[in-house]
């Protein structure tokens, strides 16, 4: 049926002005390049699997993160309640940024504020640094003023963008939360507010129960009570949300959620994503993103797509 395979396709692509060698990024918080460089050394540097590196989310203040246990294995997935441990803006800029700057790809810094002022502080502080190519706004946290999760609501998102957009000309990527009734509406608000791209999905709110029968009834396994679900189990939900967002905005979309292989990545492109990100699968295989890229290239060859940039966004 299939004729002779064409040469390896050209995977180069762009995202909100960044030129990328291929479309596979990492999901924020699922790959600590600093720790990974300590563990894998030059092997990682030479085969760095992501075309841009997204940092773990940082906040204004230093955070210890949630009490353990922080992990629970779910059917074809993982629940985590890490709680955004990080050194805070100043600590990040001083200690982490110089090391991350040595990673051989563009750096995207993920930031989360517990209110619009905090977001503004973070955007100003991070965008000023030349090592930073773009920022990702993680809007899955509650706004301590309104009480509601900023990314749940189009209006909150619009107000946030209004506040931070003027602060930098660097690309702003809004990381949408999948727990919103109307994720497409939030994406439209982000677009109107001047976002350069959106990424999704973040983790689905989830819970695990302590398996010990003796434990008090209803006691949660996770130290923080609830957590977020990721991995293959959420992929079908992610594909739907990516499709919704890609249908309702013209923004480039970084699609993620349970991507394990090239086929999964292709499904996200088919659903309307421009780039994809690998998260939980990197835990199973630190080089998973490399395999995803290679398999994607093979599938594009089979579909006779010579250049990823030509892959049509039909939604």
């Amino acid at each position, binding site marked *: 049926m299939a004729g002779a395979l064409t040469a390896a396709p050209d995977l180069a692509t762009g995202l909100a002005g960044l030129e990328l060698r291929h479309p596979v990024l990492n999901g924020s918080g699922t*790959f600590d390049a600093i*720790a990974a460089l*300590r*563990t894998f050394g030059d092997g990682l540097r030479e085969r760095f699997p992501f075309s841009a590196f997204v940092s773990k989310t940082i906040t204004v203040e230093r955070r210890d993160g949630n009490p353990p246990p*922080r*992990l629970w294995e779910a059917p074809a997935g993982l629940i985590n309640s890490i709680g955004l441990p990080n050194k805070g803006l100043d600590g990040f800029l001083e200690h982490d940024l110089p090391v991350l700057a040595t990673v051989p790809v563009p750096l995207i810094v993920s930031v989360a504020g517990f209110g619009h002022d905090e977001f503004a502080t973070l955007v100003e502080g991070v965008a000023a640094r030349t090592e930073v190519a773009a920022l990702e706004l993680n809007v899955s946290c509650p706004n301590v003023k309104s009480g509601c999760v900023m990314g749940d609501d189009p209006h909150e998102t619009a107000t946030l963008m209004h506040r931070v957009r003027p602060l930098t000309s660097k690309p702003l990527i809004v990381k949408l939360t999948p727990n919103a009734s109307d994720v497409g509406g939030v994406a439209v608000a982000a677009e109107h507010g001047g976002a350069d791209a959106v990424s999704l999905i973040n983790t689905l709110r989830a819970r695990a129960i302590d398996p010990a029968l003796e434990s008090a009834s209803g006691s949660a396994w996770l130290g923080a009570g609830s957590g977020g679900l990721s991995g293959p189990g959420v992929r079908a939900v992610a594909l739907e949300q990516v499709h919704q967002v890609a249908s309702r905005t013209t923004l480039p979309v970084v699609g993620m959620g349970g991507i394990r292989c090239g086929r999964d990545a292709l499904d996200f492109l088919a659903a309307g994503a421009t780039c994809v990100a690998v998260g939980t699968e990197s835990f*199973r295989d630190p080089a998973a993103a490399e395999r995803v890229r290679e398999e994607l290239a093979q599938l594009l060859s089979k579909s006779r797509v010579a250049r990823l940039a030509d892959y049509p966004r039909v939604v």
Partner: protein
Amino acid sequence: MTAPFGRRLCEVTANQAAGPYRLVEVADRSGPPPLAGQFYMLAAARGWGGADGRPHLARAFSVCRVRGERLGFLVDAIGPGTERLAALDQGEGMWLVGPLGIGFSPPAREARPVLVAGGVGLAPLVILAESLRDAGRDPLVLAGFRDSGYAEAAGLLPAPPVLATDDGSAGHHGLVTELLVDELDQTPSAVVYACGPPAMLESVRALCAERTVAAELALEEAMACGFGACFGCVVLTRDGYRRICVDGPVVAASDLEESWLER
């Protein structure tokens, strides 16, 4: 030495009983030799995942012994992941990432190494005992088990340990930490290396703290990644939460918060 980047497929070369545990051996052609106390993330190449979608992630295992390129892991089958690994046949494939984490530090020149094992916590102390012996620093090994059946696993050690069993069916009838108390009282120059259930490690920590004896504990926490990526495997130390996959699994007992075990 750093670990090769990415997971690699290795062949299972043997799977034999060690008491009620399984010693599963794989041929690792490309990794550097591990240090005592380091660990690997393991997954079966086939049959990973089941009717309820678990095991999904790889599982952490201390390396138990090394014979050339053959790495041995001591597996206690307590859940879906360990059951699948314990059932691997010779010739089957196993995914492996590692060696990972920080191993035990060598004992100070004048110190007497005392190794304290509880159950399958024996694993990293086998390779430690071997390397101490190779360095001419024969350790004293105290090993606690549920009963004499479990205690058969102690046959993996280069020399017979002092045993304790919960039911008295082999060695001391009681806790291995009771043996440790006696030993510490006799040997003030001891340096302790321990691995076992959390309650045992806490006892070791407290006993050594009281006596200002240096101790290194090989800790366990559920791990999703094993290389610092997920921030899931933390333990409370005096400096705050520490990821034991990259800043462990071996930690100085004195680094732990006294409340490290409280949930």
